């Protein structure tokens, strides 16, 4: 057996040489790092690096003064990560963390988002389970009641009504319609476009096609355009309005207007050929009826 004394100095020299060489080959830093620890944690969250995100949120939480905004932000980041990470989610931890925010700063911005987070957890149950819709709607209603003017409250309103509308039952549909009609009266409300779309679904269920067409057009007019996404797609909405006008309402002028908008604004859309056929079909039908009159 070789003892330490027997190792030749040249071996140590060689090892030292390798030690000098390998760091030179070390991996370059691929990801950008951020000076703000909360921001760095969210970057890890975006990359799906859940453990790293949790470690960074934890570190930010430890370093933040009690009751500070940084503490709330770290708590919210932690709650969101434990709620939404897959695999390795921990609903109990997430609920406790959201609750901590609600207790610490019940009227804060993050309290609104935390309450919505808790409601979403009731709605987005694991695959194979069915949500308890009474509980889900109650949770959304709580967000609406506690934060009526906050974006989280308005988002909860849209989710609540989408649950009612998705039932495709008349009673629930009428309930949703009454709430939505009131909501769209205030045009400055965020999510007013989706509210009109949900109204269009209500009118479909209730077979009120003229109103459905009107609601779809309102929804299109109120669509918020994401300024940084040039591919905000109106092609589907044009097509949808045109086909409702043609086949459900028989309003060929409106149908022609939106088929033509599709052709003009989306010259590469796959539905363009069908739109051209539709324009011809309407002309042919009108000519046929005129001959018969």
């Amino acid at each position: 057996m070789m003892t330490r004394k027997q190792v030749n100095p040249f071996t140590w020299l060689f090892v030292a040489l390798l030690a000098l060489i390998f760091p030179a080959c070390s991996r370059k830093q691929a990801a950008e790092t951020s000076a703000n620890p909360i921001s760095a944690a969210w970057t890890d969250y975006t990359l799906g690096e859940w453990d790293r995100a949790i470690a960074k949120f934890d570190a930010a939480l430890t370093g933040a003064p009690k009751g500070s905004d940084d503490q709330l932000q770290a708590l919210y980041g932690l709650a969101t990560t434990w709620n939404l990470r897959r695999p390795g989610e921990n609903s109990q931890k997430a609920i406790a963390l959201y609750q901590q925010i609600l207790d610490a700063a019940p009227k804060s911005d993050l309290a609104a988002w935390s309450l919505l987070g808790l409601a979403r957890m009731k709605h987005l149950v694991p695959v194979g389970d069915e949500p308890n819709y009474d509980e889900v709607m109650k949770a959304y209603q709580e967000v609406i009641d506690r934060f009526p003017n906050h974006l989280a409250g308005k988002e909860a309103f849209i989710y609540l009504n989408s649950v009612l509308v998705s039932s495709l039952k008349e009673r629930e549909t009428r309930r949703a319609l009454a709430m939505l009609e009131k909501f769209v009266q205030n045009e400055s409300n965020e999510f007013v476009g989706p509210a009109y779309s949900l109204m269009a679904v209500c009118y479909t269920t209730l077979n009120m096609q003229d109103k459905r067409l009107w609601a779809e057009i309102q929804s299109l007019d109120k669509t918020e355009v994401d300024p940084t996404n040039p591919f905000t797609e109106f092609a589907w909405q044009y097509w949808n309005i045109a086909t409702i006008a043609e086949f459900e309402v028989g309003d060929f002028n409106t149908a022609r207007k939106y088929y033509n908008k599709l052709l003009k604004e989306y010259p590469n859309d796959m539905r363009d050929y069908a739109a051209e056929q539709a324009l011809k079909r309407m002309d042919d039908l009108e000519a046929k009826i005129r001959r018969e009159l």
Partner: protein
Amino acid sequence: MKSLFTFIRSYFAMIVVAATFFWSAALIVLYRTKEAPIGSITLRIGHWQLEASVRDALNVMAQRYRETHPNVYIVQDAIPESVYSQWISTQLMGGTSPDMVEVGHGSVPWNIWLSYYNRYFVPLSHEVNRPNPYNKGTDLERTPLRNTYKDGMRTSYIDEMQEYMSIPLSQFGVRIFYNRTLLRKLTGLDTAPTEYRAFLEVCKKIASQTNQFGKAYVPIAGSAYHFGMWDGMMFDPVTYGAVHKADFNRDGSVGNDELFVAVRTGLLNFHFPPFEAKFKMLREVTDYFQTGYTGLTRDEAVFLFAQQKAVFMTTGTWDARSLQKQAEGQFEVGVMDFPLPKRDDPYYGPIIEGPVYERLFGGFAFSIARTCKHPEIALDFLLFLAGQKQNEELNKIIGWIPCILGTQMDPMLKAFEPHLRGVYGAMNINLGGETMVKWSQLYPSYQVRQMSYDEMIAQFEPFYKEEGLKDFMEQQRDWRRGMQRNEQFLASIRARALAAKGDEATSAWVKYRALTKDRQIWAELGHSRQMKLIDQGPDTGAVGPYEYGPQVLAKIKERLKKEKKN
């Protein structure tokens, strides 16, 4: 002397390792010096295009770039496709990737590309709304970069990241290539017919003749690889008629769920004329492929074509120049569109509703690695390649289609001008699971004439109706998985908005609301509608999605009557 010998003997292994290391290091330095002088800026560009013309074109363009940037040297890492996914993965993870990397290779799954984009590449969104400086003096001088692209730079935009991540440099398309010399010799024709029946006649004539060795000519060189192109461009669009019957949500296409509901409820079956027509056409055309084509690879078909044993072969623009080069001095290559039956064709005429629709797609796209030491120069070089004149020249040398507006393409590629008006397939039977396994057992037997269409359908349709329900239900569970993924994504967008200030915050919140509306509100409704359709079936008494109901017709008549009176 003795002590030196003893020393060498004692440390021989270590000396060999050290000597090899220093020798390698010296060689690398030597090679790098040859590639670019010491002190210059070297940018590496990695891609999988081994076609000679691509490497030549990039070298020429690098030379052109150096005329105005004398200190910048572009070095290519051309990697075979078969190992590209492993190579790029290890390079990126090791932090040793080229500065510019060709992205989007199909052998790397999309979700992996997504994580690579996130971790290893520089977002380019801030550049796309600025004019490309290399368009100065052209009609695109003031046009934002993204609007200089024929497809609006759509392929560069990654929805999941809400960022532009690459600079595409070419556009691609698929057509039929043919050996014009052989066609002339065997049929007396100078150009191949694009009318379907005439095309089949030509194939029949070719198949009836033999070469000097007594071997029959193969009309169409086919393989499993090539079959997909024939299917997508010719057979599948025949099924478009199903849109009129089964597009229940009237979005213009028939989803696999809609088709399943239509078949399960008896509204459609596999004897629906457009479906039968697809398989009839498939049989008529593939009968002129070489025997056993389903088991052959791309290269085997290309050899057959290059050795002048076959007249036709379908492929994309990416092979155009290579085929031209292979044929040089031996035969003339022609390019034709996929044949289409006439409107008055006794069988296909009433079924085929129009030409085939093609989606524009850009490719040969490069992203900039985060490890790049000179990202501004890498971007500048890519913008140089995307300039109108330069993009035309680059693609002219390669033999591909330029992707920038106002560029001219090689006359040979005129036939690749995409059809932007037309019909598309509407027979997506892929429900996954057992249904797909069953189909993949039966379909090849039909392809190689081991069973007729009726036999295949007699086995498949009952299975699809019954067992498909399980696969359909499993697929339905995906809407909840999808919502979960969207929730995860939206949380990060919300976090960005919460952290933003001023105008940036306004924009970030608009983005958040727009994404929430698009991704999280409709899934539950869609699921409810589909389940209702499965449970209750479509209203068979009602008119189809693209037909006028009696009430609507009455309303139209009333309106026209009023108009007449006025």
